[in-house]
């Protein structure tokens, strides 16, 4: 899953801040439970669990990120 995020295009990387949790650790388990996740791998966007037990296609992940970015930054929508 980390790899699928790492290979996102540079313009998308600029929009996001990525945190990765190691499920072997107490912090990882705590975050997993906070997100109410059930399976691995899991991906949350803006603290909301979006993908569980799947690695989404890159286009789908990009679209989900852009949608959230646009909702939070309406002034930026349409700008280059």
């Amino acid at each position, binding site marked *: 899953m980390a790899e699928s995020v790492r290979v996102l295009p540079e313009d998308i990387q600029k929009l996001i801040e990525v945190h990765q949790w190691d499920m072997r650790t*107490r912090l990882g388990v705590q975050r997993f439970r906070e997100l109410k*996740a059930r399976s691995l791998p899991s991906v949350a966007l803006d603290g909301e669990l979006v993908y569980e037990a799947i690695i989404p296609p890159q286009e789908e992940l990009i679209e989900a990120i852009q949608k959230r970015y646009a909702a939070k930054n309406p002034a930026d929508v349409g700008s280059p």
Partner: protein
Amino acid sequence: MENRSHPNPQPSRYVFRTTGVCPAEIHFQLIDGRLSNIRFVGGGCPGNAQLVARLLEGKPAVQVAEELKGIACRESTSCPDQLSQAIRDAQEGRLKTAESFLVHSDPTPRSRVALIGDLSDAADMIQRLIVLCRQRAVEAIYCLGNLTGRGASSKAIFKALRKDYVTGILGAADWSSAQTASGGEQPFLNTQEKDQLIQLPHVVQFQLGSWKAVAFFGQYLQQLPGYSDFDPFAIEINMVCGLTNFMQDEAVFPALEAMASQFQADLVLFSQPRSWGHWRVGGKDFISVGPAWDGGQMAWGLLEAGTDGALFQTILEPFHP
């Protein structure tokens, strides 16, 4: 990409094996160069040992090592002199930090073992339990804690531990009691008994047929000074205690299944919930060991090696004092 997997630094804990004095070990912690939780374990004058420990709590280790160096009691050394030596050994790298928890490895492969859970309400029936277990031809008896209860009947437990009838591991209350040489949660335990407690392992591993088993009490292990998520069996502990809430949250079993391939153990035994249960997830067996006194009967677990995993049953026996 930020990785948030590592916890904050913990105090460093040391166990120093003495020479020429009554206590066999000195346990202490260093936090930012200051002493904490000093214990003289396994003999000596308990009053003076507590006096030393209290007076030195929070003191700079370097200063203490210098001030105590050379104090003689017998054979040109003393408890304070040995503490001075221990501090210097720790600071100069000759004494390594102790593991946050002690793992006992049973050297003998087993095929049929008994599991005893919380004895705090049933310490006086330990001898009867041992007899019942032996009647079923078990090769070893593991007590997963808590071992001691509120009363003089805990003495039967110490006798069983001393005579090697059973292998005991510390429960949360046992560990808490063992932290102070006197008083504490179970003030009726004498210093000798508390010293015996503090030297018991927190975790036991054993071989059951072709399966590797690990047994522990529960969540308090994660709060021990120096506990690392990368200690032996820490993944098993973190998954049972943290992820699944002692196997009570079945919704996260898919995640547990994904993590199981990283386990060292095939069988994971625990006793904190004080209830009986057996689950098989991701090719691993998880067994919750209930209390020894359960619903007005004595209770223990019989664990046998099977071809596809562990065979487990709870044995209930009436008790007539």
